[in-house]
C-alpha cells in the first residue's frame, strides 16, 4: 500500500481543493431543507407570497451553487482518479519492462498483464467512486444529523434507529451473499472450462460419438450456475424494497411523532418536513459510506497485486562499474564451469558447463526436451544470471558489461517467434531502427522471407497484427531470423528457430546463413540432428550436464546420448551416408 501511496503525493493539493468543494456541495444540499421549512412556515402557513418568492429564489441560487460545486467535485475527482491511474500504470509498466526472466517467471506473463491493465483500471474506478460519491457521505451524514438535532433533539432517535436497522440488514445480506458471489465466480469458471473443452475437442468428441455426454456435462455446469445465481439474485432483490420501506417508514414516523411536537409548540410544521429531508439525507449518506466497504476490498486486492510488482526489484541490472570488452577476444563466448538453478528449485537445470564459442565457428546444442539447452543459451544475453561459474563475452563476465552493450553484441532469435504490431519492415528493423530499406531487403533475402513478402499486398509495408497472428508460423520464424540478420551482431543465437520451416526452405536458409554469418560467432539450439550435423562443435546436453562435445562423427562414436538421439531420427545407413557426404539435410520428408 505504501508503494502505491507514493504516487498519490502530487494529488494532495487537489485533494485539499476537492475537500473544500465537497464541503461546499454538502452545505448546499443541507441548506435546501431549511429554506423549504421557511417557505412552509413563513410563506404558506403565514400566507406570505413575498417570502415564498424570496426564499424560492434563494433556493435556486443555492441549488445553482451546489451544482457548480458538484461539477467541481466531479472534475477534480476524475482528474485525480484518472491521473493517479496513469502514473500507477506507467510505474508498473516501466518496472516490468526492466524485469529479467527471473521476475517474469515468478509472476507469470498473464498475471503481469492483468496487474498492469485490469488491476490499475479497477483502482481507477474505485478511487473515482470514492472521491466522487463516498467522500461526501461522512460530510453529509454528520451535517444532516447536526441540523436534525438542532430542529428536534427528541426525534433524532428515529434516524438512529433507521440507520441501525439498515446496517444490520446490509451486514446480514452481505455475509450471506459474499460467499455465494465467490461460488458464482467459480461456477462461471467451471462453465467456461467445460465449454472450452467442448469446443476444442469437437473432433475427438464427434469421433467417439460423445456429443450427448458433453451436452450433459455442460448442462450440469449450466444448472449449477443457474441454481446459485438464482439464489444470489433473490437475495439481492430484497435490498431495494427494504431500503424503500425503511425510508418510507421513517417519513411516516417523523410526521407522526412530529405532530405531537407541533401540538406542544416544540416544532413548527415546516421543521417537521425539513426533519424528514435530513433523515433521508442521513440515510443516503450512510449508504454512500457503506459503499466504501463494498468497494474497498475489491480495490485492496488490486492494490496489493500492484504493490507486489512495484515492490519487486529487478535482479539483473547494470554493474556499478562496467568493464570494457576485450578487443582481442571480440565475439568469443565462454562458459566457465557454469551451473544454474531456477530460484526456489532444489535441482540445478545446468551443472558445470564449460565450452568456448569462437568467431567463425558454429557451436550447436542438442539434447532431449528438458535437457537445459534453451536455459543455457538465455544466460548469454543475461535473461538469467548464473548461479555458479562465469559466462564471458568478449573475455569479460557478462555481469560486468552494461546490458545495452551486451545486447548490442548479441543477436537473438527466440524459440517462439515473436513479432510486434507494425509492418514487415518495422519488424525486421526492430533492432536497428535506422537500417535502410536495402539492409531490410537483404536480411529478408537471406532469411528466405523475400518470396512470401513479395506476395503480400503491401509487401514490406504490410501490416503485422498483434503477436504476428496474420502470418504463418514459418513466416514468423523467417521474419525473426531476418530481424537478427538486420541487427548485424557479433554473436548470433538461434534458439531452435528453424523448427517451423519446411525442409527446402530450411536447407536454403542455412546455406545463405553460412555466408552471411561468416567470421561471426554462431550458437544454434536444435531438435533435428540434420540442422547441426555440420557444426564445428556440438555440445550434447543430458539432464543439465554436458555429456559430449565435438563434431558429429566423433560424437557418434564417443557419445551414447548423441548416438541415441541420432539413431532415433536417422536410419543407420542414412547416418553413415550423411556423415560421409555431409549433405543430409533432413530425415523428415514433410514436417
Amino acid at each position, binding site marked *: 500500500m505504501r508503494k502505491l501511496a507514493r504516487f498519490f503525493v502530487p494529488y494532495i493539493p487537489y485533494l485539499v481543493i476537492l475537500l473544500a468543494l465537497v464541503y461546499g456541495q454538502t452545505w448546499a444540499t443541507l441548506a435546501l431543507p431549511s429554506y423549504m421549512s421557511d417557505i412552509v412556515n413563513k410563506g404558506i402557513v403565514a400566507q406570505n407570497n413575498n417570502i415564498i*418568492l424570496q426564499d424560492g429564489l434563494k433556493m435556486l441560487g443555492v*441549488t445553482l451553487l451546489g451544482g457548480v460545486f458538484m461539477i467541481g467535485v466531479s472534475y477534480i475527482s476524475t482528474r485525480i482518479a484518472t491521473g493517479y491511474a496513469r502514473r500507477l500504470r506507467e510505474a508498473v509498466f516501466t518496472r516490468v*519492462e526492466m524485469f529479467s526472466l527471473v521476475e517474469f517467471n515468478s509472476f507469470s506473463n498473464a498475471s503481469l498483464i492483468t496487474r498492469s491493465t485490469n488491476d490499475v483500471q479497477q483502482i481507477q474506478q474505485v478511487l473515482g467512486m470514492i472521491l466522487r460519491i463516498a467522500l461526501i457521505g461522512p460530510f453529509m451524514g454528520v451535517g444532516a444529523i447536526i441540523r436534525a438535532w438542532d430542529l428536534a433533539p427528541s426525534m433524532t432517535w428515529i434516524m438512529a434507529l433507521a440507520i441501525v436497522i439498515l446496517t444490520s440488514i446490509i451486514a446480514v445480506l452481505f455475509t450471506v451473499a459474499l460467499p455465494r458471489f465467490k461460488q458464482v465466480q467459480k461456477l462461471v469458471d467451471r462453465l467456461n472450462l467445460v465449454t472450452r473443452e467442448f469446443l476444442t475437442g469437437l473432433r475427438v468428441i464427434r469421433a467417439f460419438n460423445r456429443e450427448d455426454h458433453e451436452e450433459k456435462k455442460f448442462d450440469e455446469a449450466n444448472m449449477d450456475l443457474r441454481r446459485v445465481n438464482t439464489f444470489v439474485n433473490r437475495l439481492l432483490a430484497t435490498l431495494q424494497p427494504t431500503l424503500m420501506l425503511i425510508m418510507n417508514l421513517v417519513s*411516516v414516523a417523523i410526521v407522526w411523532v412530529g*405532530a405531537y411536537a407541533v401540538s406542544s409548540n416544540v416544532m413548527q410544521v415546516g421543521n417537521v418536513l425539513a426533519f424528514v429531508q435530513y433523515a433521508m439525507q442521513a440515510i443516503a449518506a450512510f449508504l454512500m459510506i457503506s459503499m466504501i466497504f463494498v468497494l474497498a476490498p475489491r480495490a485492496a486486492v488490486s492494490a496489493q497485486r500492484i504493490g507486489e510488482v512495484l515492490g519487486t526489484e529487478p535482479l539483473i541490472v547494470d554493474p556499478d562499474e562496467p568493464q570494457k570488452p576485450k578487443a582481442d577476444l571480440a565475439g568469443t563466448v565462454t562458459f566457465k564451469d557454469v551451473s544454474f538453478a531456477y530460484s526456489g528449485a532444489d535441482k540445478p537445470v545446468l551443472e558445470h558447463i564449460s565450452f568456448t564459442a569462437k568467431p567463425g565457428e558454429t557451436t550447436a546444442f542438442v539434447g532431449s526436451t528438458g535437457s537445459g539447452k534453451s536455459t543455457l543459451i538465455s544466460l548469454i544475453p543475461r535473461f538469467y544470471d548464473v548461479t555458479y561459474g562465469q559466462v564471458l563475452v568478449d573475455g569479460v563476465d557478462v555481469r560486468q558489461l552494461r546490458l545495452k552493450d551486451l545486447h548490442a553484441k548479441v543477436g537473438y532469435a527466440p524459440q517462439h517467434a515473436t513479432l510486434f504490431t507494425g509492418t514487415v519492415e518495422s519488424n525486421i528493423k526492430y*533492432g536497428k531502427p535506422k537500417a535502410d530499406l536495402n539492409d531490410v531487403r537483404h536480411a529478408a533475402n537471406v532469411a528466405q522471407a523475400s518470396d512470401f513478402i513479395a506476395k503480400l499486398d503491401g509487401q514490406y509495408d504490410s501490416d503485422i497484427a498483434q503477436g504476428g497472428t496474420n502470418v504463418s508460423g514459418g513466416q514468423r520464424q523467417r521474419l525473426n531470423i531476418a530481424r537478427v540478420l538486420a541487427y548485424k551482431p557479433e554473436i548470433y543465437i538461434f534458439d531452435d528457430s528453424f523448427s517451423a520451416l519446411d525442409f527446402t526452405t530450411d536447407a536454403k536458409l542455412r546455406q545463405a546463413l553460412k555466408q552471411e554469418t561468416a567470421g561471426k560467432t554462431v550458437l544454434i539450439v536444435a531438435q533435428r540432428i540434420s540442422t547441426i550435423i555440420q557444426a564445428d562443435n556440438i555440445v550434447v546436453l543430458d539432464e543439465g550436464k554436458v555429456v559430449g562435445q565435438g563434431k558429429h562423427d566423433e560424437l557418434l562414436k564417443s557419445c551414447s546420448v548423441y548416438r541415441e538421439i541420432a539413431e532415433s531420427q536417422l*536410419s543407420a545407413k542414412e547416418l553413415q551416408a550423411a556423415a560421409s557426404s555431409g549433405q543430409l539435410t533432413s530425415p523428415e520428408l514433410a514436417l
Partner: protein
Amino acid sequence: MTDAKNIKQSQSRQAVRPGMMRPMGGGRVAMGTDRAKHFGRTMKQLLQYLRPFWVRLIVVVVFAIGSTVFTIIGPRLLGDMTNKVVDGYVATQAYDKLTAQLPKGVKLPAGTTGKVLLQKIPANELSKIPSDQRGAIAKIDFSAGRPKYDFAGIASIATWLLVMFAVSAVFGYAQSWLMADMVQQITYNLRRDIAKKINKLPLRYFDNQPFGEVLSRVTNDVDTVGQNLNQSITQIITSVIMIIGVLAMMLSISWQLTLIAVIIVPLSLIASLFVVKRSQSYYMNQQNTLAELNGHIEEMFSGHTVMRAFNGENRSISRFKKLNYKLFNNSWRATFLSGLMMPITQFIGNLGFVGVAVTGGWLAIHGSVNLGDILAFIQYVSLLNQPITQAANIANVLQLAAAAAERVFEFLAETEELADPAQAAAVQPADIKGHVDFEHVVFGYNPGKNIIKDFTANVKPGMRIAIVGPTGAGKTTLVNLLMRFYDVKSGSITIDGTDTRDLRRADVRRLFGMVLQDTWLFNGTIKDNIAYGKEDATMDEIVAAATAAHADGFIRALPGGYDMVLGEDADNIAQGEKQLLTIARAMLANPPMLILDEATSSVDTRTEVLIQAAMDKLMHGRTSFVIAHRLSTIRGADLILVMENGNIVESGTHQSLLAANGFYASLYNSQFNGAMVDDEPNVQLVAN
C-alpha cells in the same frame, strides 16, 4: 498456438466490447456503444424466449402495479396526514388569538363556531385570512375550549401508510424475485440451446471461427442479455406505471401545478440525452485506447526477451507513455462528462421543487390547494423525475441486451449439418473388413474452389496409407472426409461397399480410431480419459489398453496413478505422455480402422520411440491412414498419397512414385542426394 491466439482474441474482444465496464455511480448512465444491427428482429426473437413465461410476466406486472400504486398513493396520504397537523396548528393558533382578544371572564355561548365568528368579521379583515384556513376555522367550536389535534385521525392515516408501505415492499420484492428466477431460467435456456446447437453445427463452422468467439457468446453475451433484461423489463414496467399514476395524482391535485411539472421535468431528459451523446464519443475513444494500450502491454510482456535483447526498452516505454496519456485524456473527459448528469438533473429537480413551492404557495393563499397537497406534489415531481431521467439509461441497457442477444441468435441461426439418412444402413464395427474406396472424390472448403479435384483410390483391408506433403498442404482434409466431419462435393467414399453418406455419422465414426497431434484430453481422471471411447470399460481393460500403449509405466509413476486428475489442457503431464494417453484411448475403443497423425514436435526422443512402437502395435491388422512424417513409415506404406496445396497430386507406392519422377520424387531427391536413395523396400529401422 491456435488456442493461445484464440484466447487472446476473445480477451481483446472483451476488452474492446463497450459496456463491459459500466460506471456504477448513482444517476450515471450505462455507456453502451454496442449496437444491434437489427434491433426489432432481435427483440422479437427475445420475446420468443419470454413467451413460456407469459403467466409469470402477468403476475410480475400485477405485482409491479400493486407496488407502484402504493408508492404513488403514499405521498398523498402523507400529505393528508400533514394537513391534519396543519389544521390542528391553525385551529389552536386561531383559538389562542381570538380568545386572547376576548375580555376576561367572557364566555362564548354554547355552540359558537368559527363560522359564526367569521360572519361577524368585516370583509377587509376576512380577506387576510387564507381561504384554506377559513374552512378550518369555521369548524372550530369555540365554546368547547381549546381545539385538539386530530391525533386519532393522524394515527389512523399513519397506520394505513405503514400497512401500505409494507404491502408495497412485499409486492416489490415478489416482483423482483419472480423476475430474477425468470431471467436465470432464460439465461439457462439460452446456454442450453447454444450447447445443443454446437452439436448440430458442422465442423466447417468452427474451423472458420476462432473458438473464443463462440465461448464469449456462451458466457459474456448470455450474461449481458440476462442482466440487462432483468434491469430493463423491471424498469420499463415500473416506469410506465409510475408516469401514468403520478400524472393522474398530480392532475387530481392541481392542473396548474401539473403544467409546471410537465414543462420542467422533461428538461432533465433533454439534458441527459445531451450529456450522453457528448460523453459517448469519449467513452468509445476511451475503450479503443484502452484496447490499444492493453494490446501494447500484452505484446511487450509476451515478447519481453526479444524486446530486451534488441534494446527496445526506451521505444516500448515511450509508446506506452503516448498511449497512456491518450487514455488519460479520453478517460477523464468521458467520466467527467457523464458525471455532469447528476448535478444537472438535480438542479432541474430543484428547479421543479422551487417552481411548485412558489406556485403552490400562491395557489394556497388563493384557496385552491392546501399545504399537504403541495408537499405531496413536491414528492410527485421527484417521482416523475426518476423514470424520465432513466429513460436514456433504459434505452441504452436495451441496446446492450439487443446487441448481445443478436450475437447469440446469429449463432443459433447458423445452418446445421444435414440430418442422417432416415433409413441408414446398420453397421457393426466387428463386421467391417476395412475396404475403403475413394471414387472420383471432389472436395473443396470454399464453394468456388475445389482442392481435391478427382481422386480415386482403392484401399484393401489391412493396408497402410501414408499421407505426405509439405506443411500446410492440407493433410487433415482426408481425415475430415473419412470421418465425415466434412462431406464430399461429388464422388463417394465407400466402406466395404457402402457409401458413408448412407450411414449414420455416428456409425462411420465408430469405425475409425483417431489419434491426432492435437491431443484432446479433458479435465478429469486419467482413467476416464482413456475410457472416453468406451464408457463401460472395466479397470482391467483400461490398464490393458494403457499397457499396450506403453503408457502404463508413466501413469503408475504419477501421483494417484490412474486416478490422477488431469488439469485444464492436461497441463500437468508432458506432451509425449498426452500422446500416449490418446493412443491408449484409441486402443480401448478397438476400432476396425485407424487415422493417425505422427508426432514430431516437442516430444523428447525417448518418448518418441515409445509412441512409435505403440502406434505400430495399434496399426497391426487394421486399415490405417497415417499423416506421415517419418521416412520409415512412408517407405513402408502400401499406398502414399502426396498432397500439395490441399490437392492429392500423386498416389502410389514409394517405388512407383519415384519411378514417376513427379512431385514426390523431387521432394525426396532434393532432400536426399542421389546416392542416398534406397531401393530396398524394407529399410532397416533402428527405431523399431
